[in-house]
């Protein structure tokens, strides 16, 4: 598929470069074949599927409670957000009332997870543009969050913590003081990270005006999440279709202007601050109580189908659940934000330089576990 045929200035032969699946900047096993004329990209063709594990089909063979573990492995840097999406879908189908405390715990953990995910993006994006230090700053913050996750869920990555009807268990007693410390550290950490990279002239030169996509095209391609907001569209599932208890919080939605790489980057940085805001409010509002609804161990949702969207760090994470009334989902379709966002890559790569390819790919922040499923 030709992105755009450029007017040539010299009679040359295009060089075909195979970026990936083994390439440090493809963020996983992703391959994009690019044809370059000198340093300009004439044509780009993404290839995915190297990580296709058939998760959706696997889900059809698992009990509802077992599916959660599979969802952990979709977006493996924002596991809790995936778990939440699935649990919300089942709960909606069963018309379950989730206890307040459980919802608060979910929101706190998911927002923390969002920060952790964006921190990973921040670090890796630094590497993509050639700066070495950001990744260490980013991972320091991420490490703090994961330390807290470990104490809450018992796992650093594959949490399996959010359950249908609530969460696995209540928070530990030391959660609140630890959280207070973490919040302070994160606040400072985000500022540090922001200071290190965001306003750097060379970083601006590398990302400003690169890989622009307008609002109309972005919506057309199904781009969601920070990448869509960077194009100037005020669309956040937490706002437009509030799920869980998000309507109880007061937070801002960062929106970019140009839809370029820098906007996509900075929207995420700003989102981390807003997530902290949500966490603070949630911590203040949270009250003791039960953390799980009364659900049978083997859940049997009624027959029907439901589509639930949540705002994962990468965008609109949708779960389409078809139930036949048995203890296993009849069909589960995951609408992965990275999958849709990645479609826009060809459009974004038009007329770019080879070095931009990496910057652009990094800016849409894909997770291949979710793209391929």
């Amino acid at each position, binding site marked *: *598929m030709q992105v755009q045929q450029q007017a040539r200035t010299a009679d040359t032969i295009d060089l075909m470069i195979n970026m990936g699946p083994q390439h440090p900047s493809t963020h996983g096993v992703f391959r994009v074949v690019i044809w370059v004329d000198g340093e300009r990209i004439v044509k780009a063709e993404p290839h*995915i*599927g190297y990580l*296709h594990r*058939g998760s*959706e*089909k696997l889900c*059809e*063979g698992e009990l509802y409670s077992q599916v959660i573990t599979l969802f952990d492995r979709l977006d493996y840097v924002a596991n809790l957000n995936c778990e939440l999406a699935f649990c919300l879908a089942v709960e*909606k*189908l*069963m*018309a379950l009332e989730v206890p307040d405390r459980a919802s608060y715990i979910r929101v706190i953990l998911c927002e923390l997870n969002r920060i952790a995910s964006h921190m990973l993006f921040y670090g890796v994006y630094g590497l993509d543009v050639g700066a070495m230090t950001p990744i260490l700053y980013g991972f320091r913050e991420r490490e703090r969050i994961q330390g807290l996750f470990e104490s809450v869920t018992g796992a650093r990555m594959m949490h399996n913590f959010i359950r249908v009807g609530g969460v696995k268990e209540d928070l530990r007693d030391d959660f609140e003081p630890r959280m207070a410390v973490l919040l302070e550290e994160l606040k400072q950490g985000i500022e540090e990270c922001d200071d290190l990279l965001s306003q750097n002239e060379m970083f601006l030169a590398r990302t400003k005006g690169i890989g622009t996509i307008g609002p109309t*095209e972005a*919506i*057309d*391609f*199904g*781009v969601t999440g920070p990448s869509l907001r960077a194009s100037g*569209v005020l*669309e956040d599932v937490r706002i*437009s*279709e509030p799920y869980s208890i998000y309507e109880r919080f007061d937070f801002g939605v960062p929106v970019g202007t140009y839809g370029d790489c820098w906007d996509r980057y900075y929207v995420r940085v700003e989102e981390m601050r807003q997530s902290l805001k949500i966490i603070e409010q949630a911590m203040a509002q949270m009250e003791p109580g039960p953390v799980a609804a009364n659900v049978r161990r083997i859940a*049997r*949702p*009624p*027959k*029907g*189908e*439901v*589509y639930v*969207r949540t705002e994962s760090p990468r965008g*609109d994470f*949708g779960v*389409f659940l*078809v*139930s*036949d*009334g*048995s203890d296993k989902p*009849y*069909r589960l*379709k995951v*609408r992965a934000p990275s*999958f*849709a966002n*990645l*479609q826009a890559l060809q459009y974004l790569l038009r007329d770019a330089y080879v070095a931009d390819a990496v910057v652009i790919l990094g800016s849409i922040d894909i997770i291949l576990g979710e793209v*391929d*499923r």
Partner: protein
Amino acid sequence: MEQPPRPPRQRREPEVPEAPVALDERGTALSALIRDVLKEFEVEVGAAVDEVVVTVKPEDVSAICRIAKDDPSLDFKYLRCLSVVDYIETLEVNYHLFSLDKRHKAVLKASVPTEEPHVPSVISVWRGADWFEREGHDLFGVVFDGHPNLTPLLLYEGFEGFPGRKSFPFHEYDEW
């Protein structure tokens, strides 16, 4: 794939309860609106839990999608999801639509026979449908007529069978 495929799991008899339908006022208004806008097509407007379900004939999909996107009152600019569900005899193609301005949502459904699953492609309506359709073709074998590049996306080239379908054996397949 030497073994014969397992007999497909029978769908449960409808003794199980149906999920309650709870359309909000936006949904109710939308279903009336859809009936009005799509009156020249043979559509059936229903509801599932909180979403408006519009069942259409497969051959109308492309035209209806075009109207759904361009009609200012419907304004479905954003194709949230395109999925295929295997109901053994039929394959159901689901289009989850959302309007960013009006904030209403609807599902478009088109059932096609499993033997000859042909649906017109909506890639000309939403460019984002591209990979979703390729995935549907990959995993379920639905042919999206008019799609310019229906090559394998998730599977490797030369893969036989449609691993998304119920008839595809679950564990008894050769590792690649």
